[in-house]
């Protein structure tokens, strides 16, 4: 009896989090004691992201690979190149090729050439995310890909295409047919595209604690930055496409910029019955617990082009809280987040 009285009637935090999640997070963000700083349940400030860590090229069978960790979220991404022969393609798109080798090099620096239709019409980029690895209790194998997995794959593909990250010129495999005896002109026959590299970008969630999109995109970006495609040529005698197995002869992908995604959620405690709170909080880089409580989410993709911050994409859905001011605030945070990613990405590129 005495021992029972000495113990205050209290539960550990996990019990509160499970029973009354919204008031639990609210009590952290809006502490009753004004001296306590306003922190989230995971100890971060509302605008604070988790620091990414990257480890690249640890997979043997990939042209490029990366393992990205954001707190307790861990993602593996492997990029594999396979060959799509041009003669197999029905209704091949017309490709305007540069006439000379010299032109091809100068064109690489030119970002204006529109090659997105070439990549999209041939489906040369194939990103797929697999959540059913037991990465969290909600995603167990044995079922078809969940709605979340399907939508994530599509969002990643769409972002790859709209940011024009990959150049079609890096994926083309060229061949110059030998001069035939019939034409006596000095001009050699033009270069032709004999095949394309198709990039299979497979993403495996090893551990999921919120924010799968940012981590998956970071893993794709880092893997692509470190991808080396083998040197490939058409062998007219064997009539097959051969590759050189020497890494030194391979070619790195020249990406257009390095866009970084930042996801935010909006916490509206007033939505729950019995909670008297009209304020809302914008939480950067949410974890699983916060994602479960918030309805509205915004993903801002930014990049720096010649030192100027640019918005590459904004996705918003699920609520009505975020307006123009909030979007501006998030974009500012996203630009700050870009530098964080840039530091770790640059380290891995060396």
């Amino acid at each position: 009896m005495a021992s029972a009285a000495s113990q205050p009637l209290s539960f550990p935090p996990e019990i509160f989090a499970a029973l009354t999640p919204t008031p639990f997070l609210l009590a952290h963000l809006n502490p009753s004691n004004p001296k306590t700083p306003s922190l989230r349940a995971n100890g971060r400030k509302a605008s604070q992201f988790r620091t990414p860590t990257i480890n690249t090229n640890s997979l043997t069978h990939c042209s490029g690979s990366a393992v990205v960790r954001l707190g307790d979220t861990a993602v593996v991404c492997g990029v594999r190149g396979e060959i799509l022969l041009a003669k197999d393609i029905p209704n091949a798109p017309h490709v305007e090729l540069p006439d000379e080798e010299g032109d091809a090099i100068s064109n690489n620096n030119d970002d204006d050439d529109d090659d997105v239709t070439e990549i999209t019409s041939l489906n040369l980029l194939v990103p797929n995310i697999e959540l059913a690895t037991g990465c969290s209790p909600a995603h167990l194998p044995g079922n078809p890909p969940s709605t979340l997995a399907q939508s994530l794959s599509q969002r990643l593909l769409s972002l790859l295409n709209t940011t024009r990250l990959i150049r079609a010129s890096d994926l083309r495999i060229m061949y110059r047919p030998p001069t035939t005896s019939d034409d006596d002109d000095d001009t050699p026959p033009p270069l032709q595209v004999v095949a394309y590299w198709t990039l299979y970008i497979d993403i495996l969630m090893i551990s999921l604690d919120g924010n799968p999109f940012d981590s998956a995109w970071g893993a794709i970006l880092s893997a692509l930055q470190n991808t080396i495609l083998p040197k490939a040529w058409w062998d007219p005698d064997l009539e097959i496409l051969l590759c050189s197995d020497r890494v030194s002869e391979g070619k790195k992908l020249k990406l257009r910029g390095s866009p970084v995604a930042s996801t935010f959620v909006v916490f509206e405690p007033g939505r729950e019955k019995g909670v008297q709170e009209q304020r809302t909080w914008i939480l950067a880089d949410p974890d699983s617990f916060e994602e479960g409580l918030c309805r509205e989410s915004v993903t801002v993709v930014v990049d720096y082009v010649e030192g100027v911050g640019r918005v590459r994409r904004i996705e918003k859905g699920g609520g009505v809280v975020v307006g123009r001011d909030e979007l501006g605030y998030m974009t500012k945070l996203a630009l700050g987040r870009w530098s964080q990613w840039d530091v770790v990405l640059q380290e891995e590129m060396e």
Partner: protein
Amino acid sequence: MTDRRRISGPSVGTAPPIFSSTIVGAEKAQLKRPVRTRKPSELRKIFLKTGVTPSASGSAYLELEFPSPSTPSSQKKTFLSPSSTLKLTCTIHGPKPLPRSSPYNPSLLLSTTIKFSPFATRYRRGYIRDTIERDLSAHLETALRGVIIGDRWPKCGVDVVVTVLEGEEDRWCGDELGGGSDGVGGVGGWGSMGVLAGAVTVASAALVDAGIDCVDLVTGGVAAVVGRSRSLGGKAQQGDDEDESFVVLDPSPPEHAEIGAACVVAYLAERDEITELWSKGDAGVPAEELVDQAVAAAKATRNVLVEAILETAKLKFPDAVLSTGKSGGDIDMTG
């Protein structure tokens, strides 16, 4: 029928690259075959760690040492990886109550899944489970079922998910066309045996991490009957092969031109019991020795497992292990 729930790439299909160095003459290529530098009774170094997936009730990661540590993969010279390695993660979800609709089950319902990632092997694998994966899952289930004390969780289920990030190869890349390691028309599939042994060990570590009661620690071990590489002798004749074959522990299939038979066991060292035995190929007379050697490999793996689990225990229960650690120290002093 295309998979509409995933992004499927070009409709006409794509082919993996063919490397010019693999189509040269077979004899010339044999010189590049990786050579086993370990002793026949020596295992590759194992890295084992628990707690990689915090959202799961138990998890573990296992990696085998890459045979040539002098050249890390970031500075690799060639796209063709001569040898193979193993990288596995395992997560355990549960024990959790079964859905109300399911019939009464007096003991823990175990469901195991082994899934290869698309980039696990030399050729890209699909997302849909294939027969090899189903087969391996069934083997893993039998290996674990004999260890778990299932009566303690009636009406409950547990999911064991092993993801193969990188799997052992069935044969060396130079043998793809030549048919070495029984590539063409032979038994083949040697790589999956190593994968199963690793999966048993990693699942065992994850079971302990999840705190599921077991009668003992189960570990996997592989042994194989291999022939001496012909390229070394050059004059080895068909008749000599049987005399020349010997048993190795923890074989890496690319290192052997001929594998006669292989055996995997899941072994409980304390109780001296085997919960799973899987043997392939024609072992002939040394069949019993093959099983004994596989058990020896499992015993050696157990040391790594015990160490990894001790590390987990130190993290989870710092007080409890501190006291045993002291007593352990005392024993060392007196001994």
